[in-house]
């Protein structure tokens, strides 16, 4: 069998929500796009393993413009792709059980208001007047009107299906190992099978694996990998329209449109799984029961509801818990979108749209200057300890 050698305008590595949405929006502009996926299934990483929520309150300030741009993108998405993404924008709740937690969640209020978000602090009783099922243990809550929930599975695979209809080529079981450059410009990627995919513009949106791939051209994106588990219950009558998280996001959840409760969190129990040992999934017997206890604590009425399925997923975390995106300065034609830090699904589709605007040279829908991929780079001058770039600039001015 001969190796694949294909050419396109844009090659995207990673078929998650960001890869699929970038491909979809580029194909709408008439670009020829190839999307490469390491696994046998499209979008089998975080994009189809998350809780399906768009949490805006508490996001890093660099991500906020993108999240706000997303309010418009999400509303149009279902009609654009012809698949119902079950997008429901009925707000979100952050709950605090004690004074420390309440103090912690109040930190975001002044920033959120500056960005025009509708945030409101409710005391426990006011919250229970709105949603009587919440436990009396909850002392206070912050309600954010702009927050929403969606079905991550249908969104990701719906985008795949829609992009494919528009002529995007998807290749599964294609693990990219190298980025090739010619005269300093990125021009192709190669896979473990020896296939080669050429394009003028290449986007790396492969979550944690982005680091390994970008390493082949000397760009380092500081990411580490973190594992979290989540479970889903049987269908119960509708009690909750809003998504909710705990003050420090140690657990989070929502009731899906079909009535099931999705509930996940980092319990801090069980062994820390080594990614090299458990590349697919690793379930520790301690983690899910602890999360189940947390859910019964918050919604005592669910005590007799049954857990149907638990699963886990790897997240790629950046040093400041915000995404890392942009066109690289070092290698023209090479783009990056990774580091979504476990709360990326809500901003994944708007980021995909922004990446497509960036790649096709159009004005961007939101300011991305504070989430650049190279914001952690150390520019310190070895003699003076000052920022090296400023130093060079000042020398050049003279």
């Amino acid at each position: 069998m001969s190796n694949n050698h294909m050419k396109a305008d844009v090659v995207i590595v990673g078929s998650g929500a960001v890869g699929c949405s970038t491909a979809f929006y580029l194909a709408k502009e008439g670009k020829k796009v190839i999307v490469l996926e390491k696994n046998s299934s499209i979008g089998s990483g975080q994009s189809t393993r998350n809780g399906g929520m768009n949490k805006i309150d508490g996001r890093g300030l660099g991500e906020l413009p993108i999240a706000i741009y997303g309010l418009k993108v999400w509303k149009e998405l279902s009609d654009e792709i012809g698949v119902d993404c079950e997008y429901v924008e009925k707000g979100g709740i952050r709950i605090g059980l004690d004074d420390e937690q309440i103090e912690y969640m109040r930190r975001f209020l002044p920033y959120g208001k500056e960005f025009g978000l509708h945030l409101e602090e409710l005391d426990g009783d006011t919250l229970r007047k709105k949603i009587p099922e919440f436990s009396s243990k909850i002392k206070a809550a912050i309600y954010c009107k702009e927050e929403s929930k969606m079905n991550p599975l249908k969104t990701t695979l719906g985008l795949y299906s829609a992009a494919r209809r528009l002529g995007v080529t998807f290749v599964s079981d294609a693990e990219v190992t190298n980025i090739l450059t010619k005269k300093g410009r990125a021009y192709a990627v190669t896979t473990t099978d020896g296939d080669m995919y050429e394009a003028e513009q290449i986007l790396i949106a492969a979550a944690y694996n982005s680091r390994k791939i970008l390493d082949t051209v000397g760009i380092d994106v500081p990411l580490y990998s973190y594992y979290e588990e989540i479970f889903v219950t049987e269908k119960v009558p509708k009690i909750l329209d809003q998504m909710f998280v705990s003050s420090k996001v140690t657990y989070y959840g929502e009731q899906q449109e079909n009535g099931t409760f999705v509930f996940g969190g980092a319990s801090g129990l069980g062994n820390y799984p080594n990614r090299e040992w458990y590349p697919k999934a690793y379930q520790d017997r301690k983690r899910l029961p602890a999360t189940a206890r947390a859910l019964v604590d918050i919604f005592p009425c669910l005590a007799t509801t049954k857990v149907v399925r638990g699963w886990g997923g790897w997240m790629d975390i950046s040093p400041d818990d915000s995404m890392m995106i942009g066109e690289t300065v070092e290698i023209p034609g090479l783009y990056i979108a990774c580091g979504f830090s476990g709360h990326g699904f809500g901003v994944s589709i708007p980021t995909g749209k922004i990446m497509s605007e960036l790649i096709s040279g159009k004005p961007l829908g939101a300011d991305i200057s504070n989430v650049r991929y190279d914001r952690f780079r150390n520019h310190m001058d070895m003699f003076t300890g000052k920022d090296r770039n400023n130093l060079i600039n000042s020398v050049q001015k003279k």
Partner: protein
Amino acid sequence: MIRKLSEKPFEEKPDDNIIICRCEEITKGEIRRAVYDGMSTMDEVKRYLRTGMGPCQGMTCTSNVKSIIARELGVSPAEIEEPTPRSPQRPVMLKEFGNETKEDEGL
């Protein structure tokens, strides 16, 4: 695997309204349509349609869903990989599930 588009339009069949996944009430026609729309693995069909995601966790429908996908793709069912089984094996009440490891944690 390159995900090729079918050149022919989707063809409806007389038995398309048979329910295959009883928990989520997914019909044969919906599964065939999903494969036509690009879903080529059991995981993709499961995530897109929720087949095998209900209370029985696919214990009833897995082999049927697999056969339908295989036939639509024109391959042997043996070539289709089944979705990863997930815990718990049977649905468990939250309050009981939460007691599972309490002793280990000293609670």
